[in-house]
């Protein structure tokens, strides 16, 4: 069973639908016992970092996630979930989980490319340049695009944790991994077959 953590951060049904479509059992839950009993954890989310952290703490899920990471359980972060695993976010100046060292930063203003101002949020399909070898990010066509929606980006300290990078005015880490944790800035559940491929890899992953 895969636990999709429900901490009131946006609509999590699409992640569950995608996982079920791939033939894996999952549950969307905020119940500690249920999450602790799960074989693996997906930590998704959209919205703002400040409110998300407040809700996580009030549900007691921050400690639970740190424990699960320490215990070696496979964890997949998605979008806001990915940002929250770092030390700190500039969004609402939020103290985050600190599973990975680094800061989540706002895209610079103005964000420019070839003399044109880029819009923020970064919304739509963009490429990932895969820079690391990882079982969850394997079997992917380098030409594939993934669906992004975000105004903040992850700036990890340890460059060896960066598995993929994406360009949008700046180059940022769009996929990171450390031990039993993988995390992506894009939405694999909304990224067509390439995204489903990553979800499937995660569901089968034995770190």
């Amino acid at each position, binding site marked *: 069973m895969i636990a999709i953590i429900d901490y009131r951060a*946006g*609509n999590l*049904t*699409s992640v569950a*639908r*995608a996982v079920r*479509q791939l033939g894996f059992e999952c549950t969307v839950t905020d119940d500690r016992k249920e999450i602790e009993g799960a074989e693996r954890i997906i930590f998704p989310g*959209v*919205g*703002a970092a400040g409110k998300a952290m407040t809700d996580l703490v009030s549900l007691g899920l921050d400690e639970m996630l740190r424990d699960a990471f320490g215990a070696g359980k496979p964890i997949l972060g998605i979008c806001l979930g990915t940002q929250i695993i770092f030390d700190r976010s500039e969004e609402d100046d939020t103290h985050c989980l600190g599973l990975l060292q680094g800061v989540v930063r706002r895209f610079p203003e103005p964000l420019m*490319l070839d003399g044109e*101002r*880029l*819009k*923020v*949020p*970064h*919304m*739509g*399909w*963009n*490429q990932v340049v895969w820079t690391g070898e990882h079982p969850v990010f394997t079997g992917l*066509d380098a*030409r*594939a*695009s993934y*669906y992004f*929606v975000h105004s903040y980006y992850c700036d990890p300290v340890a460059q060896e944790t960066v598995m993929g990078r994406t*360009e*949008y005015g700046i180059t940022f880490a769009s996929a990171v991994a450390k031990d039993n944790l993988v995390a992506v800035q894009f939405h694999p*559940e*909304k*990224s*067509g*077959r*390439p*995204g*489903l491929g990553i979800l499937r890899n995660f569901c089968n992953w034995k770190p």
Partner: protein
Amino acid sequence: MLNKRIIPCLDVRNGKTTKGIKFKDNVDIGDPVAMARFYYNEGADELVFYDITASSDHRSIMLDVVERTAREIFIPFSVGGGIRTVDDMRAVLLAGAEKVSVNTAAVQNPDIIAEGARAFGSQCIVLGMDVKQVEKSDRIPSGYEIVIHGGRTYMGIDALWWAREAENLGAGEICLNSIDADGTGKGYEMTLTRMISEAVNIPVIASGGAGHPQHLFDVLTEAKADAALIASMTHYGHYTVSQIKEYLSDRGVPVRMLW
């Protein structure tokens, strides 16, 4: 580099897709779930469902369409038409849509944009704007006015002002529909699209008038749209989404070519 998005729009009435010419003489052309699956497989980057029945009686029919679609396609899709409250938004999002679009309701009650953005995040809230060209005046300095009721009612609101206002209220995206161009197949409203796209810092989807891949090229380059809505040109089989994408890609427009 961020790709330009090609977005088929499915008008849905009583659970069936239609495509009207200038909002009149709508004809049924199929099952929305089947069409969504077809476009997903063809490489559409996103889909829009527009519920043109939009009376409360038909709400459950539309939610059923959204739920069945969400089980089969794994790209973003939005739902618009008759969404008036945060509860309406919640129902559509929980049924599996990525975004909701508000149009008339936002003109009549702009707070719905802010309320929706607070509840679900700006990325969920698309402002749909129906626009007609008018004489420039003190009231409508841009020469483009917001209309509702399929273009029959002029609202006395300047389109440029409204786009900026919606961005300030928390809209995450604008779907800009020219009533003048809609259904003509003669190309998008270039002047309007460029004006709005340069004025806001959120993505603008151009809508109305697409008949040839050249029209998409023009609006995505010269008029600076971030995405282009299409309907008749693919619904009736004149072009496929992949043909349009090849045309754009060959001419240097970044589009998603692998799906």
